């Protein structure tokens, strides 16, 4: 199933309800960010994609809440290979226009559940897509986005300290350290 069909199927599955959802998290950036890879108007979309991939939970803020778009733009502009940049740029704008076509509205205007289902479908599509990559062929654009969200979030101040356990100065090493189910991973 290609992305267009996936989105169409989702659109039908969710009844094509196009309700503007209030952002469920607070603290999104009010000052305009100078973007070098994405466009300033992508801020909310990227933050909402980030929030959908890594949402706010009881112990830690979501990726959108910490303004992951800012890091995504820096990383995409400076660290992605040109071939990945091109793949991401093209597929991302296609994604935005597909959403418009299918839902008649922007991604950020959709309900959180719809956003989740759309990205979950993309994630599943990406897993299949990435299994048969030719050498040096960029991965699925959603994988590039998702990797930036994961890396940016878990290396952020909130992500490292709240979603993970951050030990800047351990002081020593213990090879047998108690671990209970649910304990968090070290950030480094």
């Amino acid at each position, binding site marked *: 199933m290609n992305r267009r069909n996936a989105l169409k199927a989702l659109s039908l599955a969710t009844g094509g309800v196009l309700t503007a959802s209030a952002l469920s998290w607070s603290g999104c950036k009010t000052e305009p960010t100078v973007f070098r890879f994405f466009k300033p108007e992508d801020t909310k979309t990227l933050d909402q994609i980030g929030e*959908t*991939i*890594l*949402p706010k*939970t009881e112990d*830690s803020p979501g990726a959108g809440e910490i303004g992951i778009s800012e*890091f995504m733009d*820096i*990383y995409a502009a*400076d*660290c*992605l*290979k*040109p071939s990945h940049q091109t793949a991401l740029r093209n597929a991302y704008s296609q994604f935005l226009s597909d959403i418009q076509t299918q839902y008649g509205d922007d991604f950020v205007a959709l309900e959180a559940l719809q956003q*989740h289902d759309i*990205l*979950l479908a993309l*994630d*599943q599509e990406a*897993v299949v897509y990435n299994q048969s990559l030719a050498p040096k062929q960029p991965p699925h654009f959603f994988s590039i986005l*998702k990797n930036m969200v*994961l*890396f*940016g979030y*878990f*290396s*952020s*101040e909130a992500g*490292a300290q709240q*979603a*993970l356990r*951050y*030990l*800047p*100065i*351990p*002081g*020593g*090493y*213990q*090879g*047998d*350290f*108690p*671990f*209970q*189910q*649910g*304990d*968090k*991973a*070290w*950030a*480094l």
Partner: protein
Amino acid sequence: MPQNTQTTPSERSFDAIVIGSGISGGWAAKELCEKGLKTLILERGRDVKHKKDYPTALKNPWDFPHRNRISHAVKEENPVVSKCYAFREATEHFFVKDQEHPYIQEKPFDWIRGYQVGGKSLLWARQTQRWSRFDFEGPARDGYAVDWPIRYGDIAPWYSHVEKFVGIAGNPDGLETLPDSEFLPAWQMNVVEKEMQGQIMEAFPDRNVIIGRCAHLTKPKKVHLEQGRGQCQARSLCERGCPYGGYFSSNSSTIPWAEKTGNLTLRPDSVVTAIIYDEKQEKAIGVQVTDRLTKEKIEFYARIIFVNAACVNTNILLLNSKSNRFPNGLGNDNGLLGKYVAFHNYRGSLTAKRKGHEDTYYYGRRPTAIMMPNFRNVYKQETDFKRGYMTFYTATRTSWGRKPEGPGIGAEFKKEMSQPGYWSIYMMMQGETIPKEENHIRLSPDKVDDWGVPLMIASVGYDENDEKLLQDFLEQGEAMLQAAGCYDIVRDDNGWNPGLDIHVMGGVRMGKDPETSMLNGWSQFHNCKNVFVTDGAAMTSTGVQNPSLTFMALTARAADYAAEQFKKDEL
């Protein structure tokens, strides 16, 4: 002291000159200064003061714009140095950028350099194992290179001498193949590594598995506190420079120690372009320097010269030190200077998964791995390749980068990624390579660098022995991981170019015979006795161990001899 050409020759005269301030140069300076010799260190790079000049040492991941990754533009500009595992956003200021000092790759060669006070001692991997008698006896027994002019017994006291000062963490394992150092308390193995140790040693009774040995202060002694160094904090941010002095570097240890004697002069930004040989006195009398910044040319004089510029630059400097007596480079009567260059074979690695112990974790970031001394061809030749390799492995629990069990987005996914995953095993090799005449470094006949020194041409490659040794490691590695209960074992040949190991050795080898070697058993030129070479360039063969500890021991031994000869007026 004044540092320009306005100074008089006597103001530019010292008892000893040490060229290079890295791991071996720092030791040469410390030993010579302690024995009362007025010593000048010439360092081609900028000054780096301990603590003060470690700008990233205390930064958090989120303090870096790219979270400690290298940008695409920097990678494009630096195709060579950006391959180095330690070249990161937090450390790039300690590495030479590709364009700053070009060279010619007749065969692919990755030349990794650190031009600053402290050199690569700021950046080294800090793993320290003594050579064994088998390593020194290897060339003579197996008929390659030339016989070492020394044996384990000659260097053992000097290993002890440097180890006490450096501080080596390790366990007294009592192994003939990897003799014990003077140890500080060892790092621990984690639960999985320990279980694998038992399984591997049971399945392969001739192999040993031990905790790694490294230059980290697990429990500082008085001599370390006197250096101003403290306990390693298990941060594993070492290559940024350690504000605790937890690991050994010239910056934290030997250079300030030498300075305390009052006998040291340190001149950064001083590119030594040649050693000056005096035909009448039949010895070297000093060095020519080009100031890195002003390009001013200036000479310094001394009775003893230690060359510690790091292997490749030591070869370049000596090849460029031409005189009527030595038209092909200092001491190069036999034409072997720059030849028999060797390195370490790091191409093989394996990854695997391991079940069990999901209820155990570890605390802190240990600066060493599990080590296995070489078990190939130790007592006699057993395989269809010469020599052998050390094996290293670690067991760690995976983090957020792993594939999730369920959906890859949302609250459940986030929770899963916030917790440690399965145990992941990484195993790698460090293989000996056989020095060969065709593996060499020479100077360009027509191209020069910014300081007027001919560009280096690297012609160093792998051979059939290296390929066989690699295959053997991959086979044995897989067998050992299987015996240790691992699954999903994946072999990898990373295809690294020579040089990326940063263990380049040889070109100015030690030996017994002036016809077939450059240096004698005191690391002293056979035919120019007041010049000593005690960095990697002096190595006759490579062994399988991380080499820095041996460079330090050979340096301290040579400096002791040189100072003795100096005082007897023999030099």
